[in-house]
């Protein structure tokens, strides 16, 4: 039997942001392609910083934004682009509950969205439509915004929705489903392909507020298309789609790969009580919540950090999931909890961010 090829990452450099506060979010701009600079943004304290990974292994600071309210703490960032000009757009949100949209070309905060009743835990852009932004909040709801026309398209919340803070969400690659998870231990799937959803989204592009008498008919989605509390026994703080499977983690030292319904079932039933667990990725010493894992763009590598500054990396590009080997990345100076990890588009660079305001860069080394 041939051993699966291993991949390793080696430490390249680290830097520390001067505010000394935890950096909660980091995201690479995956819209930049081969040959374009490797740019990522971090969210920590009341600041958003934009960096570039240089060829020589260093990290260069490009831009930095600071909220005038010193009480604000940004928790999350997400990249998109303006569909008219192609220019990059950065969305950021945090404890104040305000979503800010930055245009990096003009270095301004061009828009802001209020309406969430509490802090925002995650932001995600729709993979097919760069104008649709999903925001996930401590007020138990998710909201979808059309940032081109400044309209609130849908609220995913209510009687059958989450009953506690929503901590994370993800939209699948084709843009058909949202999966969300939260402090109520549950994971819920919301379809975006229903007639009501499709028509509301297209209406949001054509609605003219100055001509309308009534406000925009925001879709109130109270009922998810699938819900389960059987995967985890504690706060579920990170979830991602892996094809038609779901990867999610809680603070129980394991990332679970599972699918709704029975193994061969393809349909989603809203009162289905079956779930099938496919694989568990175990690691150690990560018992605090709000620690996120990341997949690279091609979904071949998975990385998560623990509360002692160690990063676990799995190679997913193998046919037999039980063969997935794990490498550990450590550095003597990296001892603070790693809040989030992110891969560059090709997967060659891994960045992890910590509670002591440090940013760590790891570059891929092919091992034989």
């Amino acid at each position, binding site marked *: 039997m041939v051993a699966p090829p291993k991949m390793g990452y080696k430490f390249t450099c680290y830097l520390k942001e001067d505010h000394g506060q935890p950096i909660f979010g980091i995201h690479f701009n995956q819209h930049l392609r081969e040959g374009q600079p490797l740019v990522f943004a971090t969210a920590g304290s009341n600041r958003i910083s934009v960096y570039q990974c240089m060829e020589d292994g260093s990290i260069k600071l490009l831009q930095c934004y600071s909220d005038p309210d010193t009480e604000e703490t940004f928790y999350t960032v997400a990249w998109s682009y303006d569909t008219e000009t192609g220019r990059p757009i950065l969305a950021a949100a945090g404890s104040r509950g305000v979503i800010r949209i930055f245009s990096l070309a003009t270095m301004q905060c061009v828009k802001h969205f209020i309406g969430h009743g509490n802090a925002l835990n995650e932001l995600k852009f729709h993979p097919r439509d760069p104008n649709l932004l999903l925001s996930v909040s401590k007020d138990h709801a998710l909201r979808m915004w059309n940032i081109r026309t*400044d309209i609130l398209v849908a*609220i995913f919340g209510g009687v059958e929705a989450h009953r506690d803070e929503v901590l994370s969400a993800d939209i699948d690659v084709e843009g058909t489903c949202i999966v969300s998870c939260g402090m109520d231990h549950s994971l819920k799937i919301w379809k975006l392909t229903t007639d009501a959803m499709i028509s509301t989204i297209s209406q949001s592009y054509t609605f003219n507020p100055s001509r309308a*008498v009534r406000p925009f008919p*925001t879709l109130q989605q*109270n009922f998810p298309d699938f819900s389960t509390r059987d995967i985890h026994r504690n706060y579920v703080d990170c979830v991602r789609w892996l094809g038609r499977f779901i990867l999610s983690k809680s603070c129980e030292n394991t990332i679970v790969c599972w699918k709704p319904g029975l193994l061969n079932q393809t349909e989603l039933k809203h009162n289905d009580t079956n779930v099938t667990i496919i694989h568990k990725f175990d690691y150690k010493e990560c018992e605090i919540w709000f620690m996120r894992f990341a997949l690279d763009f091609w979904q071949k590598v998975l990385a998560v950090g623990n509360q002692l500054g160690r990063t676990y990396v799995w190679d997913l590009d193998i046919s037999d999931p039980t063969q997935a080997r794990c490498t550990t990345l450590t550095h003597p100076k990296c001892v603070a909890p790693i809040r989030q990890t992110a891969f560059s588009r090709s997967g060659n660079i891994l960045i992890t961010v910590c509670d002591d305001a440090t940013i760590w860069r790891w570059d891929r080394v092919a091992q034989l």
Partner: protein
Amino acid sequence: MPQKKKDSFGIDKPVTEVHADHELFLQAFEKPTQIYRYLRSRNILSPIFLQRTLYYMRGRMSRSHKNRMSFKLDYLLDKVTQKSERQSERPASFLNICFSGFHDGKLEGALGDVARVETFIVKMCHKKRKESSSPLMQVSVGTQDVNINPPEGEGCGGGGGGGGRNSTLSIPIHNYTSSNGHQVKSYVLIFRVSLVHDQENACEPVMKRRRMSRSSSQECQESNLNNVGNTTMNGNSVNGGDGHSSMGSIYVGELVMFDRHGRCLLTPGKYELVLDCHSGESPQLCKTSPKKNASWESIDTLKLDGIFNNIPILKFSLNWNNENTASSLERPRLRPLKPLDVVLANNASTKPKPQGVPSPEAPQLVLYQFVYNNNSRQQTEARRDFHCPWCSLNCMALYSLLKHLKLCHARFSFTYVPHPKGARIDVSLNECYDGSYAGNPQDLVAMPAGFAFSRSGPTRRTPTTTVLVCRPKRPKPSLSEFLEQDDNDFDLPRSYILGHNRLYHHTMTCLPIQPHELDEDSEGEHDSEWVRHKTQMMIDEFSDVNEGEKELMKMWNLHVMKYNFVGDSQIPLACAMFLETHGTELLRKSLYRNFVLHMISLHDFGLIGTGVVYKSILHLQN
């Protein structure tokens, strides 16, 4: 700051403590004072309201309505025709431009080479609503030949009358005031310098030079500096033409004649105009407003010597020459810019008697006393006029001054104490100052952020109120309202705006309610989709009820929720309506017996009488 004298109290305090107190005192008053000083400068440059229109500032309003008594509509036409006749009668006066030379460090022509300067006046007219862009009219007013790179000390021919050699251009002034059916917004002088080819130059006769009496060096300096600011410098023009000078290249420069207030910017003097190189194109109308292309450079960053050597410059001197005529009519004269406070002071001196409490003729003494913490006071030098110490506004009268202080400087509280020689005003910090935004709350949440507060011109406001003009009965102005009050709630003028000055939010989305949505109440939660869905789901979850029962339950519940029956007396009506709308459906789903059972249960509970049961079943059977 006016000088302060310490008032001694005779209380023994250690020196350091007194000093610390003093420091605190100064600090406390310093911040509001700085704020008001800053606002003063800003309001001079970019005012948000006019002082003379305030009801307590009648003294500053010089217009009166006396003419209204004798006004008749019929006279309007006569007035206007007379005015335009006067204008056309007046013989033209002239703008004389005397070109001294075209300088370009890159040109290597021998002395005596000439370039041709063609001057245009472009009138930019007011854009009417239907037009897509401002109409421009370009008129050529003359062509001159100028020397290229004349050495210093050479100038153009004598000013004024002569005309003489071609380096002087005279433009009759009526070019600038006729309207042509369009209202002219601004005028721009465009100079187009074209270089003739080298070979031709050699054949040109050498031009004779003339000397010109120089204006005083100060005026020259000033106008040059003036125009360093005024010349249009596009981003590229600093490096000038890239050595195109041997071809038939063309240099263009622009000068704005009048600013948007109608003041003439072309003060007499010597000018150096930076030109932009276009290679061999026809003269372009300036398509964009010169204001958009112009940029201000600060003088100390520009190195005047270096920069002006290598870029093409047209030098000329300019003056206005009013010819004497026999006409006795006054021509309107274009005044140069005046600093604004001089203007204000001038206006103030011609005011009629200010309103309000008649003040004694002798100059009043106004004494300001700063009170801090009720235990330390400082007095200032008294003033003998009614100028506000923070914004130097001449309030003309004591009442106006006090009213202005109270309203515009609300961070302080002012108390008036009559004084034998005039007035004493006690100034203390206003503890109850509410610094929150008092305007339209929509301004705070609108996108883009801060749009309503930007000073780049008027912004569209969304009105949420409907008051247009309001002339309330005001109490006669008296100084008693400023005397010290024991309790501060003498009757404040009631707010005249009824309606909403608050920001409301939608119930479900928590988004702000836009003003045009205020009329509709969209929040009434009646029969929402999710409630209907939920009840159906819950009924489906019953495990001990058969399918038919569930179906009837759902139908009945939805029906009741839709029409919102709340009283027992409405149940018979509910039954009747239910049968009308769902009768056929019941039979189709074979729920006849279920329905009968339902009727019986309603009867058992006393909600309907037997008659109703009978009628309903009869209805269903039909």
